[in-house]
């Protein structure tokens, strides 16, 4: 061990803070200059920590399950009334759906329709919140042998949740639809008008750039659009909600604040923004 004289050691201690602050600026520049290196470092760290998170996740989800159970017991009466009413309504829809399905099958037989292949998917557990203060992302533990790749689409059991942006050897990061960098081409089902769903870090992303002459209606269903080649058409996203201030938002079907597992779909689509565009947000004008 090197023995330093006391004044020298004091001088070094006093110097270390300015030097490290300068190094922090250096790291900022490095982060702007070499996004790939930073991404690799992030995923290496996430890979190393994901077993720990997966272990910690067990008791956390047990506690969360217990809390949900208690809430469910507490609200059972109101829930029951709501479900009875909803069941009534759905029964009517079921009749309609069955009739439409039969009609659809009949029409397809006459058209020599080539059915879409059922998409491959795999399910992965959400183990960590990978967003931080100004981003919305989650980390999935995918296990050592996986075929997850960038651009795959993540859905929870209700609807669209986000997209895989970074992949490590045993974990993957999913940028959620609510993140400020998220831009998703969508279709309004009522009017078939296309629009862009823009994340703003709040629970409800904004709807922007719909064509002139079309006004999104409250309660209109929003589904993905195949416009940019990044998504298949027709994945359920949410419903249109007007705010009191007159902005149009999308209430997502997916419960992004309590994600447990996500399904990663491989639609084989490649029309995706390069990963740098996700890691480094560019100022975007109107497209």
């Amino acid at each position, binding site marked *: 061990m090197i023995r330093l004289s006391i004044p020298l050691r004091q001088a070094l*201690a006093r110097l*270390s*803070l300015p030097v*490290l*602050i300068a*190094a*922090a*600026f250096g*790291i*900022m520049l*490095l*982060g*702007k200059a070499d996004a790939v290196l*930073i991404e690799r*470092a*992030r995923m290496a*760290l*996430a890979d190393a*920590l994901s077993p*720990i*998170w997966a272990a*910690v*996740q067990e008791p*956390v989800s047990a506690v*969360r399950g217990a809390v949900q159970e208690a809430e469910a017991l507490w609200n059972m009466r109101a829930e029951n009334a709501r479900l009875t009413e909803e069941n009534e309504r759905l029964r009517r829809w079921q009749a309609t759906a069955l009739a439409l399905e039969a009609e659809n099958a009949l029409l397809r037989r006459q058209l020599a329709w080539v059915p879409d292949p059922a998409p491959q998917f795999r399910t992965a557990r*959400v*183990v*960590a*919140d*990978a*967003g*931080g*203060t*100004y*981003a*919305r*992302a*989650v*980390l999935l533990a995918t296990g050592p042998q996986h075929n997850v790749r960038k651009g795959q689409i993540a859905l929870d059991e209700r609807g669209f949740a986000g997209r895989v942006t970074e992949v490590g050897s045993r974990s993957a*990061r999913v*940028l959620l639809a609510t*993140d*400020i960098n998220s831009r998703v081409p969508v279709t309004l089902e009522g009017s078939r008008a296309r629009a862009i769903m823009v994340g*703003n*870090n*709040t629970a409800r992303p904004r709807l922007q750039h719909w064509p002139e002459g079309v006004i999104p209606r409250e309660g209109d269903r929003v589904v993905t659009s195949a416009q940019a080649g990044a998504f298949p058409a027709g994945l359920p996203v949410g419903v249109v909600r007007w705010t009191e201030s007159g902005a149009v938002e999308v209430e997502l079907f997916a419960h992004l*604040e*309590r*994600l447990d597992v996500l399904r990663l779909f491989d639609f084989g689509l490649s029309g995706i923004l390069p990963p740098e565009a996700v890691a*480094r*947000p*560019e*100022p975007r004008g109107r497209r």
Partner: protein
Amino acid sequence: MGLLRRLDAAARAGFPGMFTALLIILAAVPVGIPGIVGAVSLPCIFFWTIFRPAAMPAPVVFALGLLQDLLSFAALGTGVLTLLILHGVTLRLRDVLARQSFLANWLVFCGFALCAVALGWLLQAVLGWMLPPLAPGLHQLGIAAGLYPALAWVLSRLHTAMQRAEAAL
């Protein structure tokens, strides 16, 4: 000095940094509240810089900031710079702060956390070249301010235990 005693001293010296790193890692477990990762490090660094600065030197703060930045999606370097500046300012005012009551320290911490969050927001705006929303920053400030009493209670217990162990040597 015996090996065991040296190990003991090393454990005491390494504890503040390791404990903070562990908290940062555990804070990433999703519990439905975003922004905890950026909030847990502030109280720990503030506390240890005042009461045990030898165990929380600038390189350790740097490493903790880097860990925090790599775990979150934030622009790299923002957490490092914010935590280093918090550490530097706290160290400068250490002689005054160490003699204050808990409540006064909490108020000072709230002020520091406000500055840290404002600096983080500014860096995020400059590096991302767009204005991030204010709400997550305020959220982070609230979590940090609310965590301080709980963390300081636990940490001061640990600190007195360590002092007792050192006095017994």
